[in-house]
């Protein structure tokens, strides 16, 4: 049960965002920019980084929510998400993305854990300054999101069939206040 009185019909971070819409706005904007920009990092790449950091932080809700969103962008292929949780080095992702995962995992441990070698390695695999910037900030942002969700003991849906429904909603409409203001997606 959440530590504070929130709408328990809303899952995970959605109930917390609804509790405090003032902070929900910049949090939603941050997620939208970081996860829905598509440049030399695809939306799938960005969601995979978020999934991996949430996995490292042992945040079930974020891990599975973003894992399903990544899966949507990968046309339903769940094997990549499952592989990165086991060992990203052996997942079928590009060497560049692997080098960015290395940076993200260091950020998860702490900002100072990122070494010049990690950055150099990413550059050698073709990462741009912007790719590196966004990777660091996505990883850092999920160190916030994960702590927000678990620190307030938010509701974690156990019914795994609900995660793809919410994922589809995000893929179609993006992040923002609609995720707690509109009715939650239901099974067809």
């Amino acid at each position: 049960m959440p530590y504070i009185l929130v709408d328990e019909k809303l899952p995970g971070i959605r109930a917390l965002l609804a509790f405090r819409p003032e902070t929900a706005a910049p949090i939603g904007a941050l997620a939208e920019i970081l996860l829905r920009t598509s440049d030399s990092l695809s939306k799938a790449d960005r969601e995979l980084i978020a999934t991996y950091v949430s996995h490292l932080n042992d945040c079930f809700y974020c891990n599975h929510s973003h894992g399903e969103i990544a899966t949507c962008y990968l046309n339903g292929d769940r094997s990549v998400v499952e592989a990165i949780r086991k060992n990203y080095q052996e997942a079928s992702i590009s060497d560049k993305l692997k080098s960015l995962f290395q940076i993200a995992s260091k950020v998860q441990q702490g900002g100072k854990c990122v070494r010049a070698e990690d950055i150099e390695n990413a550059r050698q695999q073709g990462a741009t300054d912007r790719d590196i910037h966004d990777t660091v900030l996505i990883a850092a942002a999920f160190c916030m999101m994960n702590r927000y969700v678990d620190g307030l003991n938010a509701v974690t849906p156990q019914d795994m069939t609900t995660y793809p429904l919410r994922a589809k909603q995000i893929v179609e409409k993006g992040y923002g206040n609609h995720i707690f203001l509109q009715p939650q997606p239901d099974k067809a």
Partner: protein
Amino acid sequence: MAYIDLQNDLPGIRGPMVYRPETGAALNELAEILLHDENNTLSRGDREMIGAYVSSLNDCFFCENVHSAMAQHYYQCDTPFIDEVKTDFTSADISDKLKSLLAIAGSVQLGGKQVTETQIDRAKTLGATDREIHDTVLIAAAFCMFNRYVDGLNTWAPQDMQVYIDRAAMRAEDGYSQSGLVK
């Protein structure tokens, strides 16, 4: 030196915020609401103190000194008082309620799951509202982001402590607006 070319020489978080203004605006807006907005039953000093404490736990020099100076400005106290809160808040001369919120913030810094029901009950017994507990958790979580952003990109920080003290009054006046970044 920063790991990437930020195309500006601003210190700390201001460098990457100006480098990527889209995310910079969202981050500033979050800081503004959590730390500066007056519509809050937690004082600005207490909220900055929580930010400074979490930054000290994360060993983030820039954020720790910026937000320690902010807390010092609002509290109208001296630097040793702020240092004492960061070093051992349990024996510092602050309210029991703030102590209970700093305990929650310390757990958030370790990881979301480290916050215990006992800590929450203690804060509520001492008068903390749900909204105050929410903001404490989110401030602590947000600093786990800000600190990683600043150090993960290896940004530079002024070493002269007086710089932080001198800037605090201006920041308190202007708040965390995007336009204040380049001042």
